[in-house]
């Protein structure tokens, strides 16, 4: 039987969406519903993984498999899932505090591996679920209303960090440009390797600086005629990285949206694994048969054969 074509509405669960009215996240899930429908994503083979914070609930609002993990740990959970079943389509939704604060070590480590998955960062500059403290994306000197004093810590540049960490697809989008975001998500999913999308997203309750108006006035889309982020040759990697980093420091008055860096040449972690373990992609850990009628597949003879180095016969 031909499976019925799922619509965007089919990718929405009936879990009540309890984000604040007007939340910047609405646009993110809306774009996901549409992107998943357009990509005909199989709900059982698509996994939305989230951390803690407002973004954490994303896993419950999308009608695919959802794994709502720990604060800062969405990436290692996701890698365990993806590496033991590389056929899965894995989308991570995590906040800026989650990825760049408590989970920064994991963020850098994923880039080094280039595991084939998508990281969607909900970039709202604040820790909303705990009353709006400064997130690592909030610039020094800024004072959203929940802060008593202006922020005295510098911000991380997520795009530059992703590029230097080794992510092979690095983009920025904005939750209020749903078509742009949807297309960026689809591009990121199609990309082979670790893809990072910095998604600008106003927190309507705690951040009175980075509002819809603020972003609407500043964002612009990078256009193909004067911007080429794609690495075509390995010799180009460094130059394209430098170009992306320079562009990423263009903020405040004008905020570019689009793909900053795209490198289809670096092998994915899965490819690196299958190079030394040729059966890996065909029969990954989750698909391995480990028993036969309740017995281990390693019988006595095989045990002796495998572990001969440890066996001494007297």
């Amino acid at each position, binding site marked *: 039987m031909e499976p019925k074509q799922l619509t965007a*509405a089919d990718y929405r669960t009936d879990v*009540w969406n309890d984000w604040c*009215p007007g939340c910047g996240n*609405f*646009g993110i899930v809306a774009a996901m519903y549409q992107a998943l429908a357009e990509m005909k994503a199989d709900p059982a083979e698509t996994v939305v993984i989230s951390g803690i914070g407002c973004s954490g609930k994303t896993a419950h609002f999308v009608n695919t498999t959802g794994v709502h993990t720990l604060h800062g740990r969405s990436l290692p959970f996701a890698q365990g899932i993806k590496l033991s079943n590389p056929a899965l389509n894995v989308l991570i939704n995590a906040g800026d505090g989650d990825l760049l604060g408590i989970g920064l070590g994991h963020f850098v480590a994923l880039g080094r591996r280039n595991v084939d998955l998508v990281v969607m960062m909900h970039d709202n500059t604040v820790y909303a679920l705990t009353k709006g403290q400064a997130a690592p994306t909030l610039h020094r000197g800024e004072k959203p209303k*929940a802060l008593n004093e202006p922020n005295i810590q510098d911000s991380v540049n997520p795009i530059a960090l992703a590029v230097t960490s080794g992510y092979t697809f690095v983009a920025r989008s904005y939750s209020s440009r749903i078509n742009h975001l949807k297309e960026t998500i689809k591009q990121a999913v199609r990309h082979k390797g670790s893809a990072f999308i910095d998604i600008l997203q106003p927190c309507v*309750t705690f951040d009175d600086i980075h509002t819809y108006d603020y972003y609407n006035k500043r964002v612009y889309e990078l256009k193909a005629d004067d911007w080429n982020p794609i690495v075509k040759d390995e010799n180009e990697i460094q130059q394209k990285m430098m170009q992306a980093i320079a562009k990423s420091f263009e903020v405040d008055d004008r905020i570019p949206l689009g793909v900053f860096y795209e490198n289809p040449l670096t092998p994915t972690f899965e490819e690196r694994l299958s190079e030394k373990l040729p059966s890996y992609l065909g029969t990954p850990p989750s698909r391995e048969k480990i028993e036969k009628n309740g017995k281990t597949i390693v019988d006595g003879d095989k045990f002796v054969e495998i572990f001969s180095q440890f066996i001494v016969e007297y």
Partner: protein
Amino acid sequence: MYYIVMNMNCEDCGRYIPHSVYKYIGFCEEQGKVVFNEPPTNCDTVSKTTMDSLSSVFGSLGWVYCIDCKAPIFEMEEAVKHIASHHLITTRFMYDSVAAEEVGAVS
């Protein structure tokens, strides 16, 4: 095709920017002041929600919010149903500088 809201209280007017929780509190863009869901006799402006404006919202933002249902709506057809049931649909919320102070740390 126009969809014209029939029962015109402030709540039904396109220029009414409702408070996100209390729907009878709102900001009237026309008059530039806070209003409390007053009957239309107080003003002579008429506002309509059109299918065109609705579909352009879905094309840009991707959602509208139903204050009655306290939930975002992601599909046009569903939004139409809420409007038909006289639900208050919006994409904008009246500025509230004090709500943040009323929220506890919740995570």
